[in-house]
């Protein structure tokens, strides 16, 4: 569904992505892991067209996404830290995004209901806590029934109940054949929702396997151990 081909991006002298090539197929939850600064967020932002790569290509259903915008109809994005205009109300933010994505046929308001966002519709974005902003981000990401969901550390600021709601939603959407990319540092969570794990290190793919294969390869029961083992072995 998404194919990244020889993607490179440097910030000044720092090579954040270094000739990265990887493919993601629909109906799977892929967890992207890696140390801080490994290029996880940069990769997601490249897919979204927020960061423009120096070289290489990204193909969405076989078509290059560079300098395009219409493909983003099929992507829901939940940023690591949701930044919103401070003096807009939750209602206005949601209405505006709906206005922009008018051609979406299915409107999925499940998360708005589950998170009880209607009761806060008239609050300003600037007055919301980090967790509530995350809930708004999540609701917006899932709202237009996109084929691809990119979730950047989705549960980082959420309370346990809200995080659980989100995980259920992720698994539910996966069954509809969607591709869900999650960056996360919490291994237990990765094990719970993900099918595949892709590890980025210094801007290239360290490994990209299903969870089962990773465990077999390392001969470990727990995923966190298995991953630590693989990473240490290769050093």
């Amino acid at each position: 569904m998404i194919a990244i081909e020889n993607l490179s991006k440097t910030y000044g002298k720092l090579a954040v992505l270094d000739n990265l090539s990887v493919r993601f197929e629909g109906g799977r939850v892929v967890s992207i892991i890696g140390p801080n600064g490994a290029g996880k967020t940069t990769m997601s932002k490249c897919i979204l067209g927020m960061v423009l790569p120096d070289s290489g290509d990204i193909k969405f259903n076989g078509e290059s996404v560079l300098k395009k915008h219409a493909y983003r109809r099929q992507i829901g994005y939940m940023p690591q830290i949701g930044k919103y205009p401070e003096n807009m109300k939750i209602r206005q933010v949601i209405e505006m995004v709906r206005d922009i994505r008018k051609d979406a046929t299915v409107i999925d308001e499940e998360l708005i209901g589950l998170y009880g966002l209607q009761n806060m519709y008239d609050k300003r974005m600037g007055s919301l806590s980090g967790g509530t902003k995350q809930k708004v981000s999540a609701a917006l990401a899932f709202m237009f029934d996109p084929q691809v969901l990119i979730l950047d550390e989705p549960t980082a600021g959420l309370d346990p109940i809200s995080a659980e709601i989100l995980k259920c939603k992720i698994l539910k959407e996966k069954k509809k054949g969607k591709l869900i990319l999650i960056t996360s540092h919490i291994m237990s969570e990765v094990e719970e929702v993900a099918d595949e794990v892709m590890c980025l290190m210094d801007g290239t793919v360290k490994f990209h396997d299903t969870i089962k294969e990773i465990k077999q390869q390392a001969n470990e029961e727990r995923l966190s151990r298995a991953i630590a083992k693989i990473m240490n072995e290769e050093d």
Partner: protein
Amino acid sequence: MNKIIKYVLYDIVRNKIVVAYTLFLLLLSIGLFNLGGSPDKGLLSLLNLVLLTVPLISIVFGTTHFYNSYEFMELLVSQPIRRSRIFLSEYLGVSLSLSAAFLLGVGVPVLLFAPGATGLYLVLTGLFVTFIFVALAFLASVITRDKAKGIGIALLLWFYFALIYDGIVLFILYSFGDYPLEYATLALTALNPVDLGRVLVLLNLDVSAMMGYTGALYKSIFGSGWGVGLAFVVLLLWVLVPLLASRKVFQTRDL
């Protein structure tokens, strides 16, 4: 496009600076027309103040607005919408609201106290200057990510066009006074939109007789419909060049 302009305008109207700007211009215009004896005198004083304050407010407001809308633009960039559309909506939102303020604050008093061609030129010049300096403000904002630096560049641009440039022109005229400088002066005027606007309005007042040979040359050029048209084309270029340059930078940068 207008969907996003709607939200940009909503944001601008709420922060009340534009309302204060309108009232300020209104007070200034009405005050000057009531102080000066003839409407022409009023127009002349108004011209000088407008050419000083409108660029300053446009460029400072444009720059701060751009930096304050960063989150808004970030939110939109991940949506299925062209970057240039986001950028142009921001630009039109800012320049249209400042133009509306100018029309209310200066246009209406001019229409009441000094209707006529000169007044019309003054209002048109003010509108062009607004669009030009908002475009320059956006150019300053896309050059650097640092808000303080951006506002610094914006203020420097204003200093340059409003004050320093005239100093440079005077210096050139003084140093090369022995040579025929008529056409050079004309070219120098075109290189500064504020001066161009000033000359355009001045030549419609009777004061141009005091400007010597160069004034006569200006009069022969700007006095004709063709010359005025050319002056407005140059002003239009002054809007388009910084606007398109900054749009290009905005489209090819990371957010």
